[in-house]
């Protein structure tokens, strides 16, 4: 055991954790919007819209995240047309490519979580709203969404933890996140166990924090 290496690598790894957190938060925020959008599309009665939303979530949940990042980072740059548009400013940055891939991926899982949450809402709640003369738009925003959020919290907590682990793939597109820096230190010092313990502890600590926060929110929003 090389304790000195563990102590010297800790600040470096902690610094890299910042990038991991940035990636996580950005992809969760975008992913939540995408997820909500596709959950609503999934409940649409129009068959084409419905199938489109189903296809989206099927493809993104059925393929590895690594393929998705590679398609976006290496693949999209190949399209000549894209290079001439404003989009290229975003797509040439590995940071944004990673966020787009993560957001699309977590969006697919989130849409499934939200859809099942919406479907488990008792029809009585909506009927009660209707009989009180509340417009269906307000029923959606004030009754369905808050209940769905509460129902989906446990599953969404798991999804956040999965996404935290998913951000480690950013290191494959040259980003120096926690895993990227850990790999760099391992490959220069050849001391994998020490670095694994330090980096792993940081990840476990973050997982623990997410878990505790979700548990707290579950308690707070329970009815």
């Amino acid at each position: 055991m090389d304790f000195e290496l563990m102590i010297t690598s800790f600040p470096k790894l902690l610094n890299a954790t910042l990038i991991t957190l940035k990636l996580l938060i950005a992809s969760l925020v975008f992913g939540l919007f995408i997820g909500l959008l596709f959950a609503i599309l999934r409940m649409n009665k129009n068959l084409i819209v419905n199938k489109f939303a189903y296809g989206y979530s099927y493809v993104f949940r059925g393929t590895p995240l690594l393929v998705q990042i590679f398609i976006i980072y290496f693949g999209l740059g190949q399209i000549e047309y894209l290079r001439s548009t404003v989009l290229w400013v975003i797509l040439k940055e590995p940071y944004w490519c990673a966020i787009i891939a993560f957001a699309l991926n977590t969006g697919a899982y989130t849409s499934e979580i939200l859809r099942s949450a919406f479907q488990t809402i008792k029809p009585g709640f909506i009927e009660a709203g209707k009989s009180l003369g509340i417009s269906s738009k307000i029923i959606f925003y004030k009754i369905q969404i808050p209940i769905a959020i509460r129902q989906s919290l446990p599953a969404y907590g798991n999804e956040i933890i999965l996404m935290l682990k998913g951000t480690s793939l950013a290191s494959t597109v040259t980003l120096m996140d926690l895993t990227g820096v850990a790999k760099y230190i391992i490959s220069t010092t050849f001391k994998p166990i020490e670095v694994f313990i330090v980096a792993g502890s940081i990840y476990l600590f973050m997982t623990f924090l997410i878990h505790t926060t979700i548990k707290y929110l579950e308690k707070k929003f329970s009815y």
Partner: protein
Amino acid sequence: MEILAFGKTGWGDELFYATLMTLAVSITAMLIGFIFALIFTPLKLSKNKFLNLIGNCYTTVIRGVPELLVIYLFFFGGSGAIMYVASIFGYYEYIEINAFITGSFAIGIISGAYSTEVFRGAIQSIDKGQFEASKVLGIKKHIQFYKVVLPQMLRLAIPNLSNVWQITLKDTSLISVTGLVEIMRQSYIAAGSTRDPLFFYSFAAVLYLLLTYLSMKLINKLEVKYSRGY
């Protein structure tokens, strides 16, 4: 389509073998995972606090740490650990372990943590009366496990195990970082030499979709088979 031709002119056969490799690694990893689950499930269900702690540590750490980090640990630390053991026995030459073994072991440990949770949940949801009834009938402990607990457990576990299989199948894409030529690595090589990453990575995605789709069909059949009588 020319680019996917079999033989020397296209990448068809290479990608076909790569797909078989992905399947082989996934199945090996899943089986290694079952061995881990068989060891750690009793620990997690044990009443002994110390054994319980070991079981919980395994599932918590593995499920809380990114898969890629675990793979790097095995990739960089695997041969070092084997060489250390060998040096105790007086063997000092360099030992290199095969990427297939390292990869399936790393993925196996990860999949084992998920399988452990599935088995634990399945055993815990078996009705207590079943255990009591077999005790009353004087059935021996190991026969009770094979004839009473296992069949009921499998029925409950198969839907969740199919999730673990999907996770394992997708995790094998990460082994490409160690150089094992599976779907992802082969696409990387092909994309590099043809400068057509969009096509090859999209094709890799299609291959993964095909694998998940076909395996789901198969598992659904198993599910029907094991839920006969319910």
